[in-house]
């Protein structure tokens, strides 16, 4: 319990009949960047809500910084910072007024208050805009201000729920620089959710979550090794014939997708030249790539991360929708 930043055992959260989080267990070490990867409605936000004391688990246990999220709520809240998925700033106040509010409510000692505010605002490069009302900020600036606010009270564990959702690539990179810098400089543990594969790659470890269940936890490299093989995609003038040929000649399984045939082969780079030479069906195009987290996800769950899951996630989607409509 002591040297784990987050510890979760058999956690379940039910909304009526639907289990948004269905018996998950994991732990996160001190100073680790831990990513929760999964499609919308997989249970990522629900897990964060429970860990941040905003929702009660239906069963199971969870501890943050060694404090139980049900019985030691105040201690948990004191030790965490949180950047929500949806905006949570007071847009009628200026940037610095938002931070002052936060510093007061989190009891940042008055002696260091001004200094801390200046420090975090400088970090996210908003010091010059501190006296402007948040209404005048761009989406990226708001996100950065929220990140600064989440850090203001020196949390031991920082929760980021889809921190770069809807941001342009430049801002996303910038936010990632802050996140990794934070881990290096301050040793802050970072728990983040995302459905961007490229972002998940930057985490030290990833849990892949789908339909409320964790299907795998490991480092991005190890997870990709699970798929192991290179992925070869070909287009031919007769895919059915080509599929048969691949199966009979190389004992490889193929999968059709959009007029293309996809199959996996270890050591693909050495395999291709011979393959092209001997193959009887005419090949129109061919490509080879290294496995990505997309492939890992596909392999583990049987579907791609981007397609919305209608079943199982309906309630969470409806909730999200309701919130956007002004819940």
């Amino acid at each position: 319990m002591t040297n784990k930043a987050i510890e979760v055992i058999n956690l379940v959260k039910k909304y009526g009949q639907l289990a948004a989080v269905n018996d998950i267990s994991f732990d996160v070490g001190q100073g680790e960047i831990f990513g929760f990867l999964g499609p919308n409605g997989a249970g990522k936000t629900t897990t964060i809500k429970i860990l941040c004391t905003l929702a009660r688990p239906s069963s199971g246990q969870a501890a943050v910084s060694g404090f139980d999220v049900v019985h030691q709520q105040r201690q948990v809240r004191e030790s965490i910072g949180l950047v929500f998925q949806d905006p949570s700033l007071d847009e009628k106040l200026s940037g610095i007024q938002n931070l002052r509010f936060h510093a007061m409510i989190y009891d940042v000692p008055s002696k260091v208050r001004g200094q801390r505010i200046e420090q975090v605002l400088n970090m996210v490069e908003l010091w010059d805009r501190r006296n402007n009302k948040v209404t005048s900020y761009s989406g990226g600036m708001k996100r950065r201000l929220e990140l600064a606010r989440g850090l203001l009270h020196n949390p031991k564990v920082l929760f980021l729920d889809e921190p770069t959702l809807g941001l342009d690539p430049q801002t996303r990179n910038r936010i990632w620089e802050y996140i990794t810098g934070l881990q290096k400089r301050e040793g802050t543990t970072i728990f983040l959710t995302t459905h961007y594969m490229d972002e998940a790659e930057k985490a030290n470890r990833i849990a892949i979550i789908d339909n409320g269940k964790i299907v795998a936890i490991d480092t991005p490299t190890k997870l990709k090794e699970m798929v192991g093989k290179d992925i070869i995609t070909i287009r031919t003038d007769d895919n059915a014939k080509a599929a048969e040929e691949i199966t009979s000649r190389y004992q490889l399984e193929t999968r059709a997708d959009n007029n293309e045939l996809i199959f996996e082969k270890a050591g693909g780079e050495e395999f291709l030249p011979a393959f092209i030479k001997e193959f009887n069906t005419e090949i129109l195009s061919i490509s080879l790539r290294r496995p990505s987290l997309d492939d890992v996800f596909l392999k583990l769950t049987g579907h791609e991360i981007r397609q919305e899951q209608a079943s199982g996630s309906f309630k969470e989607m409806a909730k999200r929708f309701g919130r956007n409509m002004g819940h």
Partner: protein
Amino acid sequence: MRNLRAVYIIWYRDILRFWHDRMRMMGAITMPLLFLFIFGSGLSASMGLNNTAINYIDFMFPGIIGMTVLTSALMGGTSLVWDKEFGFLKEVLVAPVSRASVATGKVLGSATIALIPGLIIMIFAPIIGVDFSVITVLKLLPLMFLLAVSVSSMGILLATRMKSMEAFQMIMQLLMMPMIFLSGVFFPLKGLPAWLNFLTKVNPASYGVAPIREVVLGKDMSAPFSINLFGHTMTLWENVAIVAVFGVVMIALAMWSFSHQE
């Protein structure tokens, strides 16, 4: 200490927001002023108040002060519904402070803001010829604040249960008009038909308006309008006690409601 600081900063933020948006107050005083000048002038000629020596406008003016405070205090819950809609409430709810202190800060913010239009209405006293001294204002302030806190607690309590601004405003409109019309702002709560008498007596606002009238008109002049409850003539302090008890119940419910929302 921590929770007191939370009450303070939540209160302070609402004051700050109010100050950024102070023109909003025009809305809060327009209605009372319309009532004051139109009803006051229009009805003065035809209204005889139980053969007393009091002008209708003198009678109505303290009621209008009460009405102004009541209206603003009830609408104070709007700030909480905004916080929900714009997500800021999450920032407050995840902070390491008690839900009770959040509710208290919200109630006090709403009550403080409700006092301001009430004070502005008083500026019109000389214009319409009502006698008003600084002492009167100082005596009125605590009474107005008590009414403001009690009604704000009710507003905040309702706001914790509301999911949208539209729903909140509809409920407030439904509540506000009866509370105002049945509180003795416009007519004395005397010699009414039984059903109307009952409604005015269960309306907590009646007990908030009566003390304000007593302070403005003086004990003797206001005596004919004092509330009679179960054959007992209510004194100023008894009225105050009823408003206070109502306020305590409302704020306790608001605190409870705050800790029991998902």
